[in-house]
């Protein structure tokens, strides 16, 4: 008889704990989403989000990693300094 009461009380307590956890989760969910909204708004306002980055499309895409340069692409450059066999380290 005592054993049955003990088991009953135990089940009741476990049940209550589960209900409490469930309630806590359902209450916490809106709070987290609200906090995320606030964070998103802050990021947008600060100009940190990719969608509102102030740079040009090339910078945005480069920052996202879409920066592969296809083989055959030509890069027109101008040398910034002289390269010489007499003093090859001059521009280091």
């Amino acid at each position, binding site marked *: 008889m005592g054993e049955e009461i003990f088991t009953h009380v135990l089940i009741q307590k476990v049940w209550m704990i589960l209900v409490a956890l469930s309630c806590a989760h359902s209450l916490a969910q809106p709070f987290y989403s609200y906090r995320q909204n606030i964070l998103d708004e802050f990021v947008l306002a600060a100009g940190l989000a990719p969608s509102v980055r102030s*740079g*040009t*499309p*090339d*910078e945005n*895409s*480069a*920052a996202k990693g*879409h*920066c*592969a*340069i*296809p*083989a*055959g*692409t*030509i*890069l*027109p*450059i*101008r*040398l*910034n*300094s*002289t*390269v*010489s*066999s*007499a003093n*090859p*380290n001059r*521009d*280091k």
Partner: protein
Amino acid sequence: MITGRIMQYIPLSSGIRIKEGSKVVGHIVEVTPASTGKTARISLQFDKLIWGHQTISIATNLRAIAGFMRINEAQTPPIGPGESDVYRWLTTVQIGGDIVYGEGGPVTTANDPNDVVGKGVYGGVLSQVRASEGAKCRGVIEGNEAPQALWVFSSDACGTYGLEHITIVSAGRSGVTGVIVFSSDRDNLKIPGGAGMLLRINKNRD
């Protein structure tokens, strides 16, 4: 370390652009001073493109190189502007002979004014790359048929211009490392600052 500045915006097939002013970084691989019976040599490699806030590994080969004076010539209209002319709309002659009919105008080959190979844009031209007759430069490679940013160079520009004492021994096309080798018949091989180059991407290394 050797650095070069991208002189014209470069459109990529993905719709994005490499900005003018981005930096290409390279280094000297080897220097061989001139000695008895041997010419001076410099081997160098351009292996990084600093673009926006990131660095991209690249391997390049050399298509053409031109001295400072040839670049200035190409940027100066052979016929001076009249009273009501807009300077950037004047006709110029590219290094290698292509004719640019001003910014926004067509680019044609030197021999045939009806042979349009590209168009003039801000800071340069966007032209279809052509193989150079009698030289080793290739036309379209790897199926990349997009018009290329050639700045002051012709669509078939190939080799050295205005740097008479410099020879391209290896353009860096063999292998993926892109080591470019120059030699000179003078004791001191000197590639002056301000020289312009057309580098071509071999292969992305990452």
